[in-house]
C-alpha cells in the first residue's frame, strides 16, 4: 500500500550512455500500471531502479512517503517477479516461499500461515513439497508470484513475467494476475503494481494506466482507451493496436470549422473539430484499420478511393485485408460477417476502400506529435 513517485529519474551508465532520461510520473496507491515499449526502451532498467537492483544516477524515487534512492532492495518494501522465475533450485517450493520471511526473522507459525495463505490463493498447495525442477512453466510462474505475495509488499514489480509461457497459458495467467490484483484490493490489502512487458496485448488488457516508453523517454502515460483513441504521437499510435495503424502522408488545410486534406492523389473536406489553424501543411494521417471500409455505404465523411488488393488474412472472426492505393499500403480490418465478397477476391483485384477521416488522427510530419494534443 503505497504510491510510487518518480521525480526526474535518470540513469547514466559509467560508459556515458544515458538509458533513462529524466522520467516523471506518479503511480497511485493500489494502481496497476504497465510499462510498455519495444526492446531497449529502458522499461526493465526503470523497474530494476525502482526495485533497487540498479543504481539511480539522477532524480528522486519516492515509495510511500520515503525517498528510497539509497535504500537497499529489502528496505523499499517491494517484491519482484522475474522473467525466468529465478526460483532457488536447491529449495523446495515451500522454502522458496518462506525464504524471505525467514530472513526477516518472522516467527515460524506466522511464516507457515503466510506461505499456506499464498499457496491457497495461487492454488499451488499440492506443489509445496516439490523442487522447482519438478514444476512446469505455469507452475513455476505461480510460485514466483507466490514468493512475492507472501512478503505482503507495498509494491509489486513484474518484469515480463509471462514471456516464457506459451500463448494459451499466457492468456490465462494474464487474467489470473489481474484477478489477483482485484482480489487483494477487495481483501483490504491493495497493492501497487508496476508491470513491465513488450507485449501490447498484455499492456492493454492488464493496465489501469499504461506508460509507453521509447529510448528511455515517456511517450504517453494514460489509460488504455486514451492510448488507443488519442495517441500522443506517431510512435504510440503505431505501437498500440494490431494490425498497426495506417500512416499516410497528407497535406492539410484547416480554417475555422472546415478542414480539407489532400492525400493519395485525391482530396476531401471534413469538420475540423479540435485541429489548429493550418494552411497547406504536410502532416501524417493516422487511420486505424477498422476505419478503412471496404463495403460501400453512404456514411458521411468517408473518402472513397480505388485500390488494388495485395492479400487477405482470414483470422476467423475478422478479416485483415491489405491494399495498395497509389503505391501506398493500406490495411483494413473487417468483421468476418461484414466482409461480403472480400473472401472471393484475388490478389490484384480492384476494390474501392473508404477512409473514415472523421476518425483520423493527425500528426505533425516532423515531430510526430498529435496536432489535437498540441492545443
Amino acid at each position, binding site marked *: 500500500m503505497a504510491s510510487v513517485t518518480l521525480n526526474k529519474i535518470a540513469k547514466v551508465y559509467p560508459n556515458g550512455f544515458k538509458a533513462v532520461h529524466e522520467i516523471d510520473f506518479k503511480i497511485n496507491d493500489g494502481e496497476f500500471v504497465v510499462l510498455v515499449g519495444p526492446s531497449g526502451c529502458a522499461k526493465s532498467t526503470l523497474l530494476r531502479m525502482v526495485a533497487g*537492483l540498479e543504481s539511480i544516477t539522477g532524480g528522486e524515487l519516492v515509495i510511500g512517503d520515503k525517498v528510497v534512492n539509497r535504500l537497499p532492495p*529489502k528496505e523499499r518494501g517491494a517484491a*519482484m517477479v*522475474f522473467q*525466468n522465475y529465478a526460483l532457488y533450485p536447491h529449495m523446495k517450493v515451500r522454502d522458496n516461499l518462506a525464504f*524471505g520471511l525467514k530472513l526477516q526473522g518472522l516467527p515460524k507459525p506466522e511464516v507457515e500461515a503466510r506461505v499456506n495463505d499464498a499457496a491457497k490463493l495461487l492454488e499451488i498447495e499440492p506443489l509445496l513439497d516439490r523442487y522447482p525442477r519438478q514444476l512446469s512453466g505455469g507452475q513455476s510462474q505461480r510460485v514466483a508470484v507466490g514468493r512475492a505475495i507472501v512478503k505482503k509488499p507495498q509494491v509489486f514489480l513484474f518484469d515480463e513475467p509471462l514471456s516464457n509461457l506459451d500463448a494459451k497459458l499466457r492468456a490465462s495467467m494474464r487474467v489470473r494476475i489481474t484477478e489477483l490484483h482485484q482480489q487483494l484490493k477487495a481483501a483490504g490489502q491493495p497493492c501497487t503494481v508496476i508491470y513491465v512487458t513488450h507485449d501490447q496485448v498484455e499492456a492493454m488488457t492488464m493496465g489501469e494506466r499504461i506508460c509507453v516508453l521509447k529510448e528511455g523517454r515517456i511517450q504517453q502515460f494514460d489509460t488504455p482507451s486514451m492510448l488507443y483513441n488519442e495517441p500522443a504521437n506517431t510512435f504510440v499510435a503505431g505501437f498500440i493496436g494490431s494490425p498497426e495503424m495506417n500512416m499516410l502522408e497528407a497535406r492539410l488545410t484547416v480554417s475555422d470549422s472546415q478542414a480539407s486534406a489532400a492525400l493519395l492523389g485525391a482530396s476531401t473536406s471534413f469538420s475540423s473539430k479540435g485541429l489548429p489553424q493550418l494552411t497547406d501543411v504536410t502532416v501524417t494521417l493516422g487511420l486505424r484499420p477498422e476505419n478503412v471500409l471496404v463495403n460501400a455505404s453512404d456514411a458521411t465523411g468517408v473518402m472513397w478511393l480505388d485500390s488494388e488488393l495485395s492479400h487477405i488474412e482470414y483470422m476467423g472472426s475478422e478479416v485483415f485485408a491489405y491494399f495498395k492505393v497509389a503505391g501506398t499500403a493500406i490495411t483494413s480490418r473487417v468483421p468476418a460477417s461484414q466482409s461480403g465478397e472480400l473472401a472471393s477476391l484475388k490478389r490484384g483485384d480492384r476494390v474501392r476502400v473508404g477512409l473514415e477521416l472523421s476518425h483520423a488522427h493527425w500528426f505533425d510530419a516532423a515531430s510526430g506529435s498529435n496536432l489535437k494534443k498540441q492545443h
Partner: protein
Amino acid sequence: MSAVASQESTRFDSSVDQYQIRRDRINSVIRYALLIAVGLVMLYPLIWLIGASFKTNAEIFTQVGFWPSKFELEPYVKGWKTSTEYTFTRYFANSFLIVIPRIIVTVISCVLVAYAFARFDFFGKKILFAIMVATMMLPQIVLRIPQYIMFQQFDMIDSYAPLVLPSAFATDTFFVFMLVQFLRGIPRDMEEAAQMDGCNSLQMLWYIIVPLLKPAIISVIVFQFIWTMNDFIGPLIYLSSVEKYPVSLALKLSIGATEEVEWNSVIAISVLALVPSVAVFFAAQRHFVDGVASTGLKG
C-alpha cells in the same frame, strides 16, 4: 496382387532386421573387446602392484606374471608394523591431520575469493585476477626457498602449519580459477531474487551460492584430497621428526632402511595408501555427473 506384395515386403523387412541385429551384435563385441584390451594395458601396472603385494620378496623378481603363487598376508602385516617405532596407523592418522584441515581452509578461502572475483566490482579487479592466474604458471619449486625461510622465521618448521596455512589464504589458485568460471556460468537472477528477499552479501553466499556451487566444491575437495595425500616434497621439506610423518614419507622410509628392502611390504603399503584417494574419488563421482547436469538451471 497387393496382398502378395505386402507379404513380400514384410519378409524383406524381417531379413533386414535380422541382418541389422547381427551386425550390431558383432560391432559391439569388437568394440568391447578393444576397449577391454586398452583398459587392461592401462590398468596393468596397478594390477601387477596388487598381485605383487601378496608375493614373497623373491617371487617378485623371479616371476613375470602378476598372479601370486600363494596369497601371503604377511607383507601387509609386516609393512604395517614398519621398521620404525610407529605403525602405519600413526602415519595414516598424520596424513589425515594434514588433509582434513587443509581441505576445510581451502574450501572456505577459495569460495570467498572466487565469490569476490565473480560477483563484485572493486578497484583493480582485472589486474588482480590476471596476477592470480599468472601465479598458476609459476613452478612450485621457485616458491619453496622463500617459503621455507618465511616459515622458519615464524618458527613453524616441523609442524603441520606450513602445509595447511598457505591454503587458508586461497593460494591454490587453480581452485579459485575453477570456482570463478563455474560461478560465471550461474545466472544472476537467483541472486537478485535473494537480494529482493533481503539477503546481504554473506547470506547470499551461504544460502544461495554455496548450494549452487556444490558440484564445484566437491571437485575441489576431491582434488585437494588426492593432491595433499600424494604430496611428498612438502612434508619432506617441512617435517623432520618421524612421529609427524604422513604416509607418503613413511613409505619412502621403509625403502630407505639399512637392511635389505622388503619390496613386498613396500608394495603392500603402497596398495593401502591408494585406498583413501580411490575411495574419495568414487564416492564423489556421482556429484561430478550432477555438476554437469545442473548447469542448465533455467526453468
